[in-house]
C-alpha cells in the first residue's frame, strides 16, 4: 500500500470513527429522551389521581377560608353593635373554637397539599446523570404518595422495610423504576387487593420486591414483558416501554430485575441494586 493510499485509508477510518461517535451520542441522547418521555408518561397517567388527591385538602381550605370570613363578620357585628345590644360575651366566646378549628384544619390541609406537590416534584426532578447516595425508602414513599387515592380506595399497601443503607444511584431514574412497577401492580389488581413492598440487604446489594395480588403473568408471556412495545394494557393505559426502560435503568446501575409469578397468584418484581457503583458484577436478569 503506497503512502497516499494509507493516508486516504486513515482519513476514512477517522471519518468513520467520527460518524460512529456522532451516532453513539445521538443514540444516547435518544435513549435519554425516551427515558424522560416514559417518566412523563407515567406521571401523566397519574394526573387524575393526583388531582383527586389534592381536591380534598383544597375543599377543606376553601371551606375554612369562607368559614373564617363568616366568623369575622359575626365578630364584627357583635363588637360593633351599639352598647347595650352586645348580647353576651359568651356569644363571642363561642366563635373562637370554630375559628381555631378552622385554622387547624386549614393548616393540616395545606401540609397535605405540600406533601403531594413534593411527591410530584420528586418524580420530576432534573436528572444530571450523576450518582449520589439516596435512601431507597424515600424513593418508594415518593412514588407511593402519587398513587395515594388508589391505595385509599381499593388497595392495601404492606411495607416490610428492612435495614438498608443508602445506595449510590441516580435517584430520579430509580424513582422512575419504582413508580413504573407500582403503577403496573396497581393496574394488575382488578377491584380490591394488596401490594406488598419488601426491602432487604444481601451482600453488596439492596433488594426491593414489589408483589401484587393480581392475576399474575402467564408463563408464556413472562419472557416477553421486558421487550420494547410489549403490553397487555389497553392503548391508553400503557406504551409497552415501561418495563423495557425499567430494565435498562437498572442495568445501567449494574443491577437487575427479576420477575416471579405463579398465575393466578400475583406477580413479584424484584429489583437488585448494588450499594456502591463501580463494582459491577455479572448479573443475570429475568
Amino acid at each position, binding site marked *: 500500500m503506497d503512502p497516499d493510499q494509507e493516508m486516504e485509508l486513515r482519513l476514512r477510518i477517522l471519518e468513520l470513527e467520527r460518524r460512529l461517535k456522532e451516532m453513539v451520542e445521538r443514540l444516547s441522547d435518544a435513549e435519554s429522551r425516551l427515558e424522560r418521555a416514559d417518566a412523563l408518561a407515567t406521571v401523566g397517567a397519574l394526573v387524575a389521581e393526583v388531582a*383527586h388527591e389534592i381536591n*380534598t385538602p383544597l375543599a*377543606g381550605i*376553601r371551606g375554612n377560608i369562607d368559614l373564617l370570613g*363568616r366568623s369575622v363578620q359575626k365578630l364584627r357585628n357583635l363588637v360593633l353593635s351599639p352598647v347595650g345590644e352586645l348580647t353576651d360575651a359568651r356569644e363571642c366566646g363561642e366563635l373562637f373554637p370554630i375559628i381555631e378549628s378552622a385554622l387547624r*384544619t386549614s393548616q393540616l390541609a395545606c401540609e397535605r397539599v405540600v406533601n403531594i406537590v413534593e411527591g410530584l416534584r420528586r418524580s420530576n426532578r432534573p436528572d444530571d446523570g450523576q450518582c449520589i447516595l439516596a435512601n431507597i425508602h424515600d424513593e418508594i414513599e415518593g412514588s407511593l404518595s402519587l398513587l395515594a*387515592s388508589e391505595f*385509599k380506595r381499593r388497595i392495601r399497601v404492606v411495607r416490610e422495610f428492612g435495614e438498608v443503607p443508602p445506595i449510590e444511584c441516580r435517584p430520579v431514574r430509580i424513582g422512575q423504576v419504582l413508580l413504573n412497577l407500582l403503577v403496573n401492580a396497581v393496574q394488575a389488581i382488578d377491584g380490591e387487593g394488596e401490594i406488598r413492598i419488601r426491602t432487604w440487604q444481601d451482600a453488596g446489594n439492596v433488594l426491593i420486591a414489589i408483589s401484587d395480588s393480581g392475576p399474575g403473568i402467564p408463563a408464556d408471556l413472562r419472557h416477553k414483558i421486558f421487550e420494547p412495545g410489549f403490553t397487555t394494557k389497553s392503548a391508553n393505559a400503557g406504551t409497552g416501554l415501561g418495563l423495557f426502560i425499567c430494565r435498562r435503568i437498572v442495568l445501567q446501575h449494574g443491577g437487575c430485575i427479576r420477575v416471579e409469578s405463579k398465575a393466578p397468584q400475583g406477580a413479584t418484581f424484584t429489583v437488585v441494586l448494588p450499594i456502591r457503583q463501580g463494582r459491577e458484577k455479572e448479573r443475570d436478569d429475568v
Partner: protein
Amino acid sequence: MSEFRPTVLIVDDEEMVTTSLRNLFRLESDYKVVTHTSARKALSDAGNTDVDLVISDYLMPEMDGITFLARFKEIQPHAVRVLLTGYADKENAIRAINAVGLYQYLEKPWENDKLLMVVKNGLEKRALLRTLESKIAELDQAHFSLKSIQTELIRAFM
C-alpha cells in the same frame, strides 16, 4: 315544648372534611350534626339516631358513597341523601341519582353557600314529606272513621 332541630349526618373518611362541615353548620344553623369517618360505623349506628339528611363522600376506603347511601336508605328510607364527590366521580354521582334516589350531589371543593342552600332545601323537603306523611295518616284516620260511620248508618237504616 322545645323546637324541632333536624339532624344531619356527615360521613367522610377525611376528618378535615367532617370537621369543616361540622363547624359550618355550628356557625350557620341550629342543626344537630353527627359525623363519622367510617362508613361501616355510620351504618352500625344508623339504628340509634333518626337522621333527616345524610351527606356522604363518594370515595371512601370501606365502601363507596353510593353503596353506603343505598344501605343507609334500607335503614332510614326517609332521610334525604346528598353525595359529595370529586370532579372525576361526577358520572357515578349522576348514576346514583336514580340508583339510590339521590336528592343532590355536590362537587368538591364545595361552596359553603351552595352547600348550606342544598341542605336547607333538602331539610325543607324532608319537613314537607313529614307533614305530608302526618296528613296522610290523618286522612287515613278520617277515612277509617267515615267508613265506621257509614257502616253504622247503613246498619241503622237496615
